[in-house]
């Protein structure tokens, strides 16, 4: 697709015929019927190589194994924690996936590791039939202290990160903040100019469908 300077990206609607199976291959957000590729979502139409795909402009987060998410601990159980990960399903972080040392669960209260209301950066270990298990074994997984949480549409996370982190690095540099983005659309921000970073992130969430967003954000942050 040729880059235009301004204007709205091409928007596909559910049921739109995007092409013939002989010419293209069905990508994400599409299905095929009778040799035709049809869109499943209201979203941005992208063609890369032979693939036609539709990136939805709204929707809930569906956990996939290996992805990193930011969650809030909602309950401390006997052998683990219940974590809210901004998806339709609750997730569970079991003790063995969270702590390395030996713990006698009869004697030790688990809230000395993670307590209700704590924010954690975790990895999805498995997600089957609405049963989501988390893990803290990854090198970047940890408890996040201080900071502010902002929620954006989960499908717009790639746009917020940008190509090889270009967009998120831009915001980090210009505002002097530390930012962590969960694939579930929860963004953790900490630092000096948090307000400015929040404004920029909200703007990306609202205007992800227009061209020249990077320039607009640069302009917004330079003011």
């Amino acid at each position, binding site marked *: 697709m040729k880059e235009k300077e301004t204007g709205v990206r091409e*928007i596909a*609607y*559910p*049921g739109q015929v995007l092409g013939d199976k002989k010419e293209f291959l069905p990508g994400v957000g599409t299905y095929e019927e009778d040799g035709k590729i049809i869109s499943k979502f209201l979203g941005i139409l992208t063609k890369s190589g032979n693939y036609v795909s539709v990136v*939805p402009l709204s*929707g*809930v987060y569906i956990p996939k194994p290996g992805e990193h998410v930011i969650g809030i601990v909602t309950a401390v159980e006997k052998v683990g924690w219940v974590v809210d990960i901004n998806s*339709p*399903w609750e997730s569970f972080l079991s003790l063995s996936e969270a702590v390395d040392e030996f713990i006698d669960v009869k004697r030790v209260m688990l809230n000395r590791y993670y307590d209700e209301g704590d924010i954690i950066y975790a990895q999805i270990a498995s997600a089957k039939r609405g049963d989501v298990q988390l893990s803290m074994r990854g090198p970047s997984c940890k408890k996040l202290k201080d900071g502010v949480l902002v929620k954006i549409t989960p499908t717009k996370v790639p746009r917020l990160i940008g190509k090889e982190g270009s967009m998120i690095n831009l915001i980090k540099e210009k505002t002097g903040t530390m930012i962590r983005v969960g694939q579930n659309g929860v963004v953790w921000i900490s630092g000096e100019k948090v307000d400015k970073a929040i404004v920029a992130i909200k703007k990306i969430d609202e205007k992800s469908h227009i061209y020249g967003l990077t320039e607009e954000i640069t302009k917004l942050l330079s003011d």
Partner: protein
Amino acid sequence: MAKIKGIELIKDGKRLDGRKPFETREVEMKVGIIPNANGSAMVRFGKTTAIAAVYGPRLLLPKHLQEMDKAIIQCRYNMAPFSTDERIKPGTSRRELEISKVVRLALEPVLFLENYPKTTIDVYVEIIQADGSTRVTSVNAASLALADAGIPMKDLVVALSGGKINGQLILDLNGIEDNNSEADVPMAFMPNKKHITLLQMDGELKHEEISKLINEMFKAGEIIYKKQIEALKNRYSE
């Protein structure tokens, strides 16, 4: 509105509101009107106005209602007390319960629900002004709201009503025509493959008449389908 005896609903090929037999009323559609909902839409056919809001997919409780391999749809059709000429009692009536089910069944075939086990998709439709054909207006609004909520769909759903007054087949009945009609046929279909998802009939029609009416409804449905696409695209136009 009660039945009026001997009313002439069609004069010189024109209806009471000046429409031709196979002409629909003025249609207005708007998407994304409720910020707190995952998806929402407003659809107006003449005076009939429906607002639909979609919440979810979200975790379904109580647990015994959950389906282990797919999401379920819960739909509620409600007429506001002030929507008709004479105030209607608040609360779900028999008629509203039936239409809730009919709207749900009209939408179910277009949704891909396998990705969301144990969840529910809640569709709430409020009629804020009623002037005939409320169930098809509800289906149109709910279809747009589902697309806005980012739920995977095979196709949109286009709905339209047809009927017969004074021996003449017509499209898109309004309140008076609805109450004095010889037949009333609401229909919903997927425009791509012309698969019908809802077809009801109230009254009497001949075999040839119903075939003709369905064909006319498919034709007029194209216009409504275009309006739906336009409304969805306008949602993301800066």
